[in-house]
């Protein structure tokens, strides 16, 4: 069958980094094609070439077999390519409905935007997707999941011939994913070609008919989904047999390192109490929006609690003071590494040094040499992939950026390490490395508190699982009692006492 959109031996370099090398890909009408690969394998670059954001250095884009030049995203859109990008690209000041139709608003005969028709179309789209959002509401303040749903509605509203989805499900719930897949399948049956990227292998196997694997910017293999197993796919992605994904080592819990007592922040979470011992990994599970991130933010002193307190090593922390929390030996690896974890324009070594400027100081000045040594040391220990330590962290892949955030905090030798979604948007290989590292830290006596939305990660890594539901701690499950069913039913409030 002829490809609607194809890439023929396309290459793309950014400076010295060869992001994509002579990759060919054919998207056929009525077929969902998965793109698999670790972070940094070149998936996002490929998407950006097909969507007109980047122009390939070599090779061609073929539309219905004829070469085309996508100089701008608008060119790709006119050719019928709709893209859901990994990061939501919304206009915070504008309403949801304007976000969906920006640049393509329905108009009356006189060129005036037809708001009634626009709202009506948005409502129909949302009904089809099963989304309960007010289309007239401003996009500012939407949760990540809601933003992602708006992105999806935006792409679907284009009636595209080619639908490209770069990690559309990262923030979505099971229900929402099922709805999305239903709509995508319907589009596919109408003759739409689909390119789908996800780190969740089960989704690839559920939705797609064909899978192309990339590694280090080159094409490894193309398979029919029916011809390959998930294990094979993982092996092709990482190019080696994976160490166990959850290398949890047993360690004996020591004394209490972190104690949270009846912590409350009005309207966010209520009466949250728990302890984390040295040598223990405690997972904080729950649905998105249950208040987990908010709890750890308050524990670390970013937000101020309305009641309750936090003790580290038996000493009560001053509220709302990250400085005090850090001094007490607390470290927080935040959920959103691009916004909160890193200064994207600063170099790797500068970022690593940020949390310990006192350690790299010589008199009143910062010693570049000490900074460099500190970063090099951690880069080796965390197996960081980089060109030079003086490169800005923005050029690293997501997994490697996360390692830099970890290095930045581990360099402080914390007694309590809080990690919020430590492996979100990270490839399988790096994921295993992050897990190994967390496990090693626990064995060495660090108390680890891990917020995670990934059930296998929670079950695979935690000694104890705390479950939150609607701002309250509803269950505490030891490792041998924590199962998918027990955690999920607590998280959805079914066993809430």
């Amino acid at each position, binding site marked *: 069958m002829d490809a609607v959109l194809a890439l023929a031996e396309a290459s793309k370099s950014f400076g010295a980094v060869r992001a994509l090398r002579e990759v060919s890909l054919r998207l056929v009408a009525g077929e969902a094609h998965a793109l698999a690969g670790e972070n940094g394998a070149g998936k996002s670059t490929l998407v950006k070439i097909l969507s007109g954001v980047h122009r390939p250095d070599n090779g061609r884009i073929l539309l219905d077999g004829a070469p085309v030049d996508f100089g701008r995203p608008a060119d790709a859109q006119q050719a019928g390519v709709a893209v859901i990008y990994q990061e939501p690209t919304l206009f915070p000041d504008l309403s949801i409905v304007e976000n969906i139709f920006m640049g393509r608003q329905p108009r009356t005969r006189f060129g005036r935007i037809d708001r009634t028709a626009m709202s009506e179309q948005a409502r129909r789209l949302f009904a089809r997707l099963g989304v*309960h959002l007010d289309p007239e509401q401003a996009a500012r303040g939407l949760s990540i999941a809601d933003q992602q749903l708006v992105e999806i509605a935006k792409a679907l509203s284009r009636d595209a011939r080619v639908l490209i989805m770069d990690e559309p499900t990262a923030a979505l719930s099971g229900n929402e994913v099922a709805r999305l897949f239903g709509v995508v399948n319907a589009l596919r049956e109408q003759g739409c070609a689909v390119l789908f990227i996800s780190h969740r292998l089960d989704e690839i196997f559920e939705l797609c008919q064909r899978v192309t694997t990339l590694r280090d910017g080159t094409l490894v293999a193309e398979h029919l989904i029916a011809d390959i197993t998930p294990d094979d796919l993982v092996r092709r992605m990482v190019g080696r047999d994976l160490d166990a994904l959850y290398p949890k080592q047993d360690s004996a819990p020591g004394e209490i390192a972190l104690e949270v007592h009846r912590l409350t922040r009005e309207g966010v979470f209520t009466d949250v109490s728990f302890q984390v011992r040295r040598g223990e990994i405690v997972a904080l599970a729950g649905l998105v929006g249950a208040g987990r991130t908010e709890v750890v933010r308050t524990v670390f002193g970013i937000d101020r609690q309305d009641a309750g307190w936090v003790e580290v090593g038996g000493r009560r922390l001053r509220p709302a003071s990250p400085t005090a929390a850090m001094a007490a030996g607390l470290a927080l690896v935040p959920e959103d590494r691009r916004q909160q974890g890193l200064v994207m324009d600063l170099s790797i070594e500068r970022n690593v040094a940020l949390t310990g400027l006192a350690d790299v100081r010589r008199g009143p000045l910062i010693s570049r040499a000490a900074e460099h040594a500190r970063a090099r040391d951690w880069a080796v220990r965390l197996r960081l992939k980089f060109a030079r330590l003086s490169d800005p962290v923005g050029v690293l892949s997501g997994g490697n950026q996360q390692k830099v955030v970890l290095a930045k905090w581990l360099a402080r030798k914390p007694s309590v390490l809080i990690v919020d979604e430590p492996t979100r948007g990270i490839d399988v290989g790096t994921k295993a490395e992050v897990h190994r590292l967390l496990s090693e830290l626990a064995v060495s006596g660090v108390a680890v508190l891990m917020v995670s939305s990934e059930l296998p990660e929670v079950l695979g890594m935690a000694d104890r699982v705390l479950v939150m539901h609607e701002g309250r701690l509803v269950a505490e499950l030891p490792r041998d009692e924590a199962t998918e069913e027990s955690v999920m039913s607590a998280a959805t409030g079914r066993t809430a006492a």
Partner: protein
Amino acid sequence: MTALTEATRPGAGGRGLIDRLTRVRELGIVLALAALFGVTGAVNPSFLSVGSIRDILLNSAIVAMLAVGQTLVIVTRNVDLSISSIVGLTGFGGALVLADHPAVPIPVVIAGCVTLGAACGAINGLLVGMAKVPALVATLGTLYAFRGIDYAWAGGRQVNAADMPESFLALGSRSVLGVPLLALVTLTVLLAVGWMLRNLRSGRELYAIGSNPDAALLAGIRVRRRVMAAFVANGALAGLAGVMWAARFGTVDATVATGRELDVIAAVVVGGVAIFGGSGTVFGAALGALLLTGITSALAVLRVDALAQTAINGALLIAAIVLDRLLALRVAGTLRRRRYRDAR
């Protein structure tokens, strides 16, 4: 299932009031205007006389015109500092042509000034849109460049009211149905631009660009072209304001409107247009101009030292921004609680 994520949320009611309040940012300034006129009028009733109000409208017409244009630019997350120089250039140029070539019809002179202003705006647009010079720097440069051209052209000359045709000067002082003509011109432009910003794709795209420039590119918006257009339109309106200046004041030289760009930006910001783009309306900006002009008049009526007026304008500007910031924080807090409620 691999992930623990939230189940579908129910739609929520009772959010109308917050949304409406966040949308109608002009409400605050309307209240401020009411308070200004109420208090001043109570102290000195002559402030509310027809003549006094007509004066205030006339005085605010030019600043309001410039504020409308500036809003187009600021909404796209840019700024144009060069408008006062464009007013100076077109105001002096127009007056000079009228004085030296009385045969040229007045509409042609007006069209010429608007075109000259648009050309100046195009230079700004090229620098910002094509050459990617930050607007603050580019228009600071053209602020001096345009004024320099103005000085060279004038060569120290001044055009007096006596040199210009009566019919032209009448435009500056005439009233239609009791409303000054210049105020009507500004009102017409205001309504037209306000309608376009709300109802045309190109208008909405200006907001999109200011709200998230990267997303605007991905949405297929021709960002450079739109930014360019905003600068050209702003330049054209500044050209029109230049003619209005000449007609209103009669005596013009090369220093016309020097320093006025900051008054205009102040009016725009007081009027609720976000300085980093993406939100605000021309109506707010025009109200801001009216408020600042009204305060100047009120302070005179209240016999406040003229020197203190500048300081008061500054305090007002800061108050407007602080209020805006507090409102934003309030809204963020409300959204927080609301989201929590919805999640239950």
